């Protein structure tokens, strides 16, 4: 294993920082057997230590301020292959800007050209299919509601969708004049597909391995105990799922359900902090994964399984 790099793609609140915090803790502490571990601790750990401490204490992270926070991990596999992994933490806001402004920082462009794989983070709460006004009005008619304060049919189907009545109402009340288009309000699935096709356009080696990380997997499992990550993506994020499936020349995909924190910080914080082995908070579901092995998706996208 020589020098390799992975691009972690995700819109704001997609769970990238929580994943990196949990990954760092697991690589360092080896409380359970995992497919990757640190060969050597990173030289500079200020940023990572702050993330890990917040993760351990179950408190919200300070939002990633830097466009691209370069992380370098010296890793070792079970068969002792070692190498340096570049794994930058890129803020979700940066990806929003890439979409809206159509510009990349030179560092990111260079990373895109050399990346061995992609970890694509999805927050189930903000990966919803867009809810049309026609669909809303049809439901209003059926329910004989006149105030429009209803949920989308999609939102009822799983935890993956916005179902905040007040939020829908406030959006309707925003209408005072002409509708003003804001690229940031575009569908998350489309933004991510666009980012992926641009990455593939830059990549020097196709197909790229894409590990889709469905974050907060515990919320989905609470509602659907039998949920499978690949089926969930097909059902609730169909556009992105289709885009990936229809482009096998560009992307080889695996879908992982990952609960990096293990629960909700406020609701479950006490229970999570009480665990003597914080690694046991982590839940990972996907192909060739141990139950708590958050390193498995990273190993696969970097082609260290070959």
């Amino acid at each position: 294993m020589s020098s390799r790099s992975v691009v972690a793609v995700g819109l704001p609140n997609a769970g990238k920082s929580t994943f990196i915090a949990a990954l760092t803790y697991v690589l360092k502490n080896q409380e359970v057997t995992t497919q990757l571990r640190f060969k050597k601790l990173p030289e500079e750990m200020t940023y990572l230590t702050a993330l890990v401490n917040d993760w351990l204490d179950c408190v919200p992270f300070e939002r990633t301020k830097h466009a691209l926070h370069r992380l370098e991990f010296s890793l070792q596999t079970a068969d002792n292959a070692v190498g340096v992994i570049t794994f930058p933490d890129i803020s979700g806001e940066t990806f929003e800007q890439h979409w809206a402004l159509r510009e990349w920082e030179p560092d990111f462009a260079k990373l895109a050209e050399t990346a061995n794989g992609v970890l694509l983070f999805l927050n189930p709460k903000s990966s919803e299919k867009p809810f049309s006004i026609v669909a809303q009005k049809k439901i209003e008619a059926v329910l004989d509601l006149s105030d429009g304060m209803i949920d989308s049919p999609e939102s009822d189907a799983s935890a993956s969708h916005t179902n905040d009545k007040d939020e829908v109402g406030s959006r309707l009340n925003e209408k005072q004049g002409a509708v003003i288009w804001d690229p940031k309000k575009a569908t998350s699935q489309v933004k991510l597909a666009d980012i992926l096709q641009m990455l593939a356009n830059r990549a020097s080696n196709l197909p790229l391995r894409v590990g889709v990380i469905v974050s907060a997997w515990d919320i989905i499992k609470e509602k659907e105990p039998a949920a499978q990550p690949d089926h969930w993506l097909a059902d609730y994020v169909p556009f992105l799922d289709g885009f990936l499936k229809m482009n096998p020349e560009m992307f080889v995909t695996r879908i992982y359900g990952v609960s990096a924190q293990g629960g909700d910080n406020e609701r479950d914080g006490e229970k999570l902090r009480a665990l003597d082995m914080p690694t046991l908070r982590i839940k990972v579901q996907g192909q060739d994964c141990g139950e708590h092995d958050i390193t498995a998706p990273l190993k696969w996208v970097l082609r260290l399984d070959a």
Partner: protein
Amino acid sequence: MPEITEPIRVHSGNTLKREEIVRITRRAYTPIVFLAGDVKSGKTTLFASIHDQLLSGAIREYRCAGSETFMALEERCFESRVASGSPEADTPRTPLAAGQEYLHFRLRNSPNNPFKELLFADMSGEFYERAVHDASELAEFGILKRSDFLAVLLDGGKLMNRGKRHIVRDEALTFIRRCEESRLLQSDTALQVLISKWDLVSERGPDEESGCAEFVKSRLNSETLKRQVDVFRIAARPNPSSKLPALYGVELLFQEWVETVPALLRSTGREPSGINAQMVFNQAGGWR
């Protein structure tokens, strides 16, 4: 070599201009659907609804495998979504100043089958009106010569208005004739007349439905126009009270557009050659 510090521009995602579609059409056979019709006749709603449906999955088993115009498609769908804050589903009007612009879909019905490319040529309905009044305005429609389909949209709502229906039909006839007389409408371009907003016709009952279709066909037919004319009834985004499903009549059209073969191959019965990802992404002048 000096280090690059300036931001790197990536493709805009907005509508394409004619010189920009060449990089798509040179890769593989790409049907172009030229949309013509009055202001608010439903041209933009037509392809915006196709994009919206693809967000939920497939149309006739075709799924979206990419686009160079994702931003433009999202913008055109925005006013139909709750997130816009709009009280009614709407579509932004294509401005006259935009000129002729193109929307792109890359589609596939199986990872084992070739990609299918599709371009919609869209322009403000004001150009249509101008062209009806003045043949010199047809200079804007040069791409029609290369188009596989001329889809002329007739507003079903206006066809239900006794006063306006004759004008709507007569303008369509004038437009088509002008295109033929100026040799923009080639013999191998399929002529399609789309009665849009069919939900507004359908809600009046079966008699009005058949009456409306016959009214259109009585003048816009192969005998009058000396060429094949296919008339379709569509409701891309039916009213919430309508019993018609979303994309009513559009799915069939979509399949015809996507699966059409170049005129040169029609007589041979051969399929057009597809493209593969290496061709797409290794070609100079791609999406960067």
